[in-house]
């Protein structure tokens, strides 16, 4: 139910800031990325079938490497976030009519962002397993650390719009993804054991 939630957010914002077409076209892409960051991570926080302690113990007994579990969960989450991005992206284009340039680069940026948020979400979920108030905690854990992902994405789309070089921002996204991959793999076993 996160896609409708993101859609409602996009609908509500012009009610708050005004509906002039130039304003909305200008802020549309940025708002899209903000919604992806803030709401998109929620799709990574759902309880998966392997979350409960008995299920995790079973997986361990079966010899499933925690790092492999992280990778599998991260990949699944990446797909979920990507779907979220596409759905919310379509809604943004409809409601805000932004100037979308450089579809090739966008096709690269979307999965890079999805992977980063997915990995962050997976790590946050395993750090908060079994805690009562997990709902509000994971997004707080993720949001400040995800700033480079959002900056990279927003600056990339803005750069494409004005025709500036965006390589450095794509690089930021790539570096973040690599770091998170390392972090996720290295922390998988200790987190499993706690």
């Amino acid at each position, binding site marked *: 139910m996160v896609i409708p939630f993101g859609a409602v957010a996009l609908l509500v914002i012009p009610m708050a800031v005004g509906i002039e077409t130039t304003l909305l076209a200008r802020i549309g892409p940025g708002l899209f990325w903000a919604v992806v960051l803030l709401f998109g991570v929620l799709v990574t926080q759902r309880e998966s079938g392997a979350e409960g302690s008995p299920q995790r113990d079973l997986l361990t007994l079966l010899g499933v490497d925690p790092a492999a579990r992280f990778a599998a969960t991260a990949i699944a989450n990446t797909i979920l976030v990507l779907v979220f991005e596409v759905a919310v992206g379509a809604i943004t284009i409809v409601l805000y009519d932004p100037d979308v340039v450089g579809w090739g680069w966008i096709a690269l940026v979307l999965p890079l962002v999805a992977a980063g948020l997915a990995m962050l979400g997976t790590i946050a979920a395993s750090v*908060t397993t079994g805690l009562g108030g997990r709902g509000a*905690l994971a997004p707080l854990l993720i949001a400040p650390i995800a700033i*480079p992902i959002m900056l990279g994405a927003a600056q990339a789309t803005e750069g494409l719009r004005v025709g500036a070089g965006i390589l450095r921002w794509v690089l930021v996204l790539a570096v*973040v993804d690599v770091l998170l991959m390392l972090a996720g793999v290295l922390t998988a076993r200790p*987190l499993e054991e*706690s």
Partner: protein
Amino acid sequence: MTKRTLEFAAAGLLLTALVVGLTVPPDAVQGDFQRIMYAHVPSAWLAYLAFGITMIGSIAYLVTSKLRWDRLAGASAEVGVVFTGLALATGMIWGKPVWGVWWTWDARLVLTAAMFFVYLAYLALRRGIDGLERRAKRSALFGIVAALQIPIVHFSVVWWRGLHQPPTILRPDDPQIDGPLLFALLMGVFAFTVVYAALVRRRMDLALIEDSLVEASRAGEDVAGAAVTAPSVGAKPR
């Protein structure tokens, strides 16, 4: 050094820094507003130092499994969030009369704000986890993941704001500062650092007492039903 000595030293140094800050001549450009910097810069320095110590404590815990390091990490984070908040507040109080706005999207302010939220997240995580080892391990791991990302947050924010730095002459830390003004600044940094050390020590004391309460209540728990209690040496089972 005993805790009392450290605390008296901290109080004395803080008082001295305050007096120095208020009595040195005003800055040539910023006038008396410069005095706010004598509290802002030390706060910002401590925000980063405390963060670093939390990271060191986290790594040390993961390596040694000694809870003392976890207490250090947690204490430094709590004291750190206070100083980070002060850095933000003083930055804003300086900015309003000087720049005319409470907030500018200056890279440094944005980074400090981001760090403030990372601290809050770390502290919220610690508060939510039961069990000392589990709390220590998970917050240490989260802390390290966060720390790994901070340099990237730094670069991405600096790149983002690269074209929009405020005029050099009105930037918060003036590199041309010298003489008595520099002394006031360094005095502040030194005093605040000692205050930080004293606060962290006391906060670790508190953590030790609270953690031992958690341990004590755990020792009283039934292990396998009411018929069996957890083994304890000497003390009568409850």
